């Protein structure tokens, strides 16, 4: 079972992602900010990380960069999910180390396709 980590400070968003992905047979774990996400990822295996941008404690950009610098986490694909639809925001996410960028709200089919694609779960 592919394991997905959702990092978002909004409980509603986490619940939404969890419901959509669990229905598709993914294992979903949650973190409420970047630091918590990083700590979870260091102690558990994840196949994909979905990461919010604007969060307390540690924001999304910093989090993604930390993932890329961490030996054991560097390879994990990360999708940043943000409410900002501006190109510069996407580019900032990519510069930080994200592999893809989705704009909230993400419709469920799109989210499922994205997660399947990035985990290779055909």
């Amino acid at each position, binding site marked *: 079972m592919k394991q997905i980590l959702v990092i978002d400070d909004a409980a*509603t968003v986490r619940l939404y992602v969890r419901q959509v992905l*669990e229905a598709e047979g993914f294992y979903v774990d949650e973190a409420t900010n970047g630091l918590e996400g990083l700590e979870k990822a260091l102690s558990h295996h994840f196949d994909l990380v979905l990461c919010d941008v604007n969060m307390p404690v540690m924001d999304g950009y910093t989090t993604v960069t930390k993932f890329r610098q961490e030996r054991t986490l560097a390879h994990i694909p990360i999708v940043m999910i943000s409410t900002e639809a501006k190109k510069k925001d996407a580019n900032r996410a990519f510069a930080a180390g994200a592999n893809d960028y989705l704009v909230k709200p993400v419709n469920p089919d799109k989210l499922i396709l994205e997660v399947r694609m990035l985990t290779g779960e055909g």
Partner: protein
Amino acid sequence: MTPILAQFISESRDLLETTGRGLLQLERHPDDSAVIDEVFRAVHTIKGASGLFDFLPMTRLVHAAEDLLDALRDHRLSYSAEIGDLLLATFDLVSLWIDVLETDEALPADAEEPSQALAVRLRALVPKESDEEADLSSATASAPPVKSVAWLKDLPESQRVGFYLRTLGVDAEGRPDGEPSSPLFGVRYRPIRDAFFSGEDPLFVVCNAPGVVGRAIALTAPLPPPTELDPYQCSLDLRLVCDSERSALVEHFRYMAEAVEITPLHALDYVIPTGTPNEGPVYEDFMEEAQTWLAQNDLASLERAAQTLLALANPESWPASILRWLQCLLKTQPERPVLQALLDAMRTQQAPDWIPLQRHADEQTAADSSARASSTQGTVTLHKTREVSPAEWASFAALLQTQLAILVIPVEEECWRGRILSMSETVSNALRYVGLVDLVDEVAECRESALEHKSSETLVNLLGDILSDIAMHLPLEEDTAEESTSPISHKAEGGSAASAADGTRREQLIPKVLKIDQARIDLLMDLIGELVVAKNALPYLANRAEQQFGVRELSREIKEQYSIVHRISQELQGAIMQVRMLPVSNIFQRFPRLVRDLSRKLNKRINLVVEGEETEADKNIIESLADPLIHILRNSIDHGIELPEQRKAAGKPEEGTIRIKAYPDNDRVIIDITDDGKGIDPQIVKLKAFEKGLLSEERLEAITDEEAIQLVLLPGFSTAAIVSDLSGRGVGMDVVRQAVNASGGSLRLSSTLGQGTQVKLSLPLSMTVTQVMGVTVAEQRFGVPIDVVSETVKINPRAINIIKHQETFVLREQVVPLVRLARLLDLHENHRAREELPVLVIRIGEELVGVIVDAFHEGIEIILKPMEGFLGKLHGFSGTALLGNGSVLLVLDLRTLVLGMQEYTRITALNTTT
């Protein structure tokens, strides 16, 4: 309600609180960037989450507020009172909507207008960004959100066939019939609910629309039952198909642009099967054969079979409708994806979604239709292992392009390795997903070479190759665009059975905080109350065992057991009470806003200081406190704190201070509200009390200033008429006192003229189980809440002195007035000569009063039930309780009894003479 909506509501409430608090802080410290950040983040989160639902007015409004906050954050804008007011108004409205969501699970029908209006005002304040960047959505050539034209199904099928053929420019047999015409336009017009009153005439507008060729009408929502129907509200959903230029339509509907959607119609838009569901085995056979023919491109067989079946089918049925469309499409637009989608609809009973196929299909008909279809089929040059839809190919290509784009973005040295690794992981996974497994190894090779040579060149080349190889799978470019936002679909509600197996990991997901329905806690509380009472039956039982049956041993055992049950039930009660405890901040947090709004209105400057917000008390106590506290605060703001100039003249700082302080004191909570306003003028109070007939002339002279101030608390003292000319306070303070007493609390008022006023509330931590003391008067038993009893003494009848017609006795060198409970209750007095009289000493405000009874009994725990119905109007009783032996105990409200008006004045007068 779905769990997600429930979560959204509760999360939004928390965030709105944060927002409200932050905005008030900003008012004091407009430059506090930490606060701006906090508010921004809260608002941002609300906006993000609201987007998951179809709450457009809310999302729009919050988004506008977020942009404004963003401007504040970036110092593109500086804080002003106007901004503060507007933001507060915005979040008041959002809070209101959240409340509505909780009951209706939808925004109020009239949310649209205020949302628009407020959003426009918010946006007007945001300075334009100088280098405004294009939205990603438009940059990546995404289509504007697709408006559903599913309503076309309401037009007759024959009419739609006509429109369909006309759009393609062919006749019924698929022969060209003139030029393909420019598309018709679908117009959907939903007048606002007040349309009939706002000068709109929907019918007139629709009848005169240019080039109307088709019409349908529906309701925006099902009509309510006739009793609730408001016929003056417009609930029409008017649909038109117009053969006209878009500009002419826009012009025609210009006055109601928000209520109108104008959509160009594609040929496939008309292809909507309709009819009654009818499933039979015969269709399943047909479906199987049809799939085969379709796969073999044997369209002739398919057409024949469709014709045969159609002759047999009920023409009103869903399958018949599909078959008719199938025939029509076979003649005019025989493309596999289109035919396939239509056949699928036979099974799913849902109209096909043409949007992904639309431009593709139109394009193909315009060109030579068959050539391209066959070329698509022939492109299996890559070793695919599964069917991949055009939409999936598009996503795949977009992902690869994104990876290519990422490679040209500069990156920090130490992140480079991570980028290459994660990128190759991403690409490999995507390749697996689309079935191009063979290429995964190549990616790995390129990755190694890239890491070795510190160059991503090989990866770039590989990605480029893959992209060009798959180009033929791709639909036209527009289809890669993001799909329109949609509310949560049924998919979101799937089960989580799949992950249940992973038990150990799952444990970590259990939240540390449980949110529990209050009703459940209340039930627990009621049950523990019953248990406490039931437990009280055991001592009775023990006594009976001993006295009636003479089994002393058993009696002793029952008593032992009782003490165990007693201890456990007390612990249980404590534990449950703990669950119900809430910090007083729950009510305190409303105050900053109250103080702000009121002081502004009155042109006063007031600083509110709140201390001890974390102090906890029972939820019911906290809630019952809200109104009295607001009342007290209002008094302070309204009558206590003076206008800045008056304060200046009095040598005080211009800004007044109101201090609210909460702290625990044994098993009680003390709340202290102090202001540094002008205080209460005892002379005016005395005068008013005299005018009201609450005080006789002689008392007027006799009572002290402090006692005079207490008069404010008397029922009947304050009415609206005296508020305006009374320069102190007094607005319904008796109401406040009653509310506080009702929850088992007490109130103390003190004031110094010119320096301020203090109100001190003392409240029990919980009000479920009450300790009462049993007393007997005239051979009847009553309960007296223990918290009013200061002590019990027995006095010699000879120690009673009469001072001014009032019985008194001396307690620790203090003269204490005495009242006889039998007289208060108008019961038969016990005149037998006794050695000593039992006296309950109770505290009323600052004074002690002795209450003579016939006998005391032990203290017991009871569940106090307030008097209801007719009895509810009786004064002097707190309620009733069921005792362990099944009898009912009346619990007295001694304060009210003793504080009968005449009694009160007599006592105060008396005290002054001591």
